[in-house]
């Protein structure tokens, strides 16, 4: 969920921008020049995957996959997500400039958290890894929803109902993302296990 321009309070915007800057700096530090093509092409693939609309009952939800991005990229997911969001703002005008920081934090922080939280589980093949993959996809969305809600409520109590609505809307997305992350994980494990090597680093 992108927060639009003009909604959040200056303090929240500044806080988001600051956190995003720190996260991006850490991510860039861990990113070698040699790895730029790989990260960029993966990040382009995530961008394109987000064009996929998955039906959930009567509505179509687009994929986010930030949990998976965290699994594959770790801290580097932060600059990768920042770039993807910037491109969305430029090409579709989704999100925007002043909210870029906040939107990056709401998407990328869960990615990094999930990377550390589920890395251990995913290293154990079989059922634990499958559970870990599902949990990773679902938790990343849950955390994103919570962060969006927190950004809105910090801006003003008036947004508490909106925040609750948004959080509720994240619940079906959570399940769908969990299932899809699980299937993607199983696919990668079978077809290109090298891609998951970051987990063991």
């Amino acid at each position, binding site marked *: 969920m992108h927060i639009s321009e003009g909604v959040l309070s200056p303090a929240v915007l500044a806080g988001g921008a600051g956190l995003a800057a720190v996260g991006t700096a850490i991510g860039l530090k861990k990113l070698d020049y040699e790895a730029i093509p790989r990260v960029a092409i993966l990040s382009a693939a995530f961008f394109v995957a987000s064009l996929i609309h998955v039906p959930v009952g009567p509505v179509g939800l687009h994929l986010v996959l930030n949990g998976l991005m965290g699994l594959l990229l770790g801290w580097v997911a932060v600059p990768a997500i920042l770039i993807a969001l910037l491109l969305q703002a430029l090409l579709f005008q989704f999100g925007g400039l002043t909210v870029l920081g906040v939107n990056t934090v709401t998407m990328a922080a869960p990615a990094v958290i999930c990377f550390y939280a589920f890395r251990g589980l995913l290293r154990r093949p079989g059922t634990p890894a499958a559970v870990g993959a599902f949990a990773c996809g679902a938790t990343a969305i849950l955390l994103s929803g919570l962060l969006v809600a927190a950004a809105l409520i910090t801006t003003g109590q008036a947004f508490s109902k909106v925040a609750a609505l948004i959080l509720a809307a994240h619940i079906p997305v959570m399940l769908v993302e969990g299932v899809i992350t699980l299937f993607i994980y199983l*696919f990668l494990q*079978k077809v290109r296990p090298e891609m998951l090597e970051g987990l063991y680093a």
Partner: protein
Amino acid sequence: MSEPLIELRHLTFAYPGSPQPVFQGFDFQLLPGQRLGLVGPNGCGKTTLLHLIMGLLKPQAGRILVLGQEVKKEKDFVPVRQKVGLLFQNADDQLFCPTVLEDVAFGPLNQGKPPGEAIRIARETMASLGLEGFAERVTYKLSGGEKKLVALATVLAMQPQLLLLDEPTTGLDERTRHRLIHILQDLDIAYLIASHERDFLAHTAAECCHVHPTCCQPIRINPGKK
């Protein structure tokens, strides 16, 4: 003679942004049991024609009839795609499942077959193409020729009444090419092959025609060397 499988009437199609239409008042018929080769230089519209029949592209004017039914909207093409199979030029574009079995069973599953039945059909189709033992192989890691045969299996598993093949020999080595010729010769359904390899068409197509903007003009193909 019975009703044509495919009939295109006065079709006009231009790619968006392109000044020159690929087809202009184009007429075409394919009769049951026909095995037709389409030839012509790159860009003459061979692929476009196949994609128009499948509803992947929509004409600006004219009518398309598949198996006697007029098709216009996306919805009309859903049953068409159950009955007409298209083999893409690039097998990589056609295969997306982790294992061969899943890929071949995908079509039958979409046709509403229960999983057990879909797997049975998939295995049978693979056996008929000499792909026994491929079921658990990772599709992505197959060689180019193997991918092409698996792609053909995914299409044939849907038991189509008509097959459209787009440059089926691209990137095939001699052996797989021979195998493909034999498979096509043994098929008992009508098909349409777009190819620039005249030698291949001489073995697989009973008639050939040259794709022009207004029609397909029948031509003679020299028989192959064998």
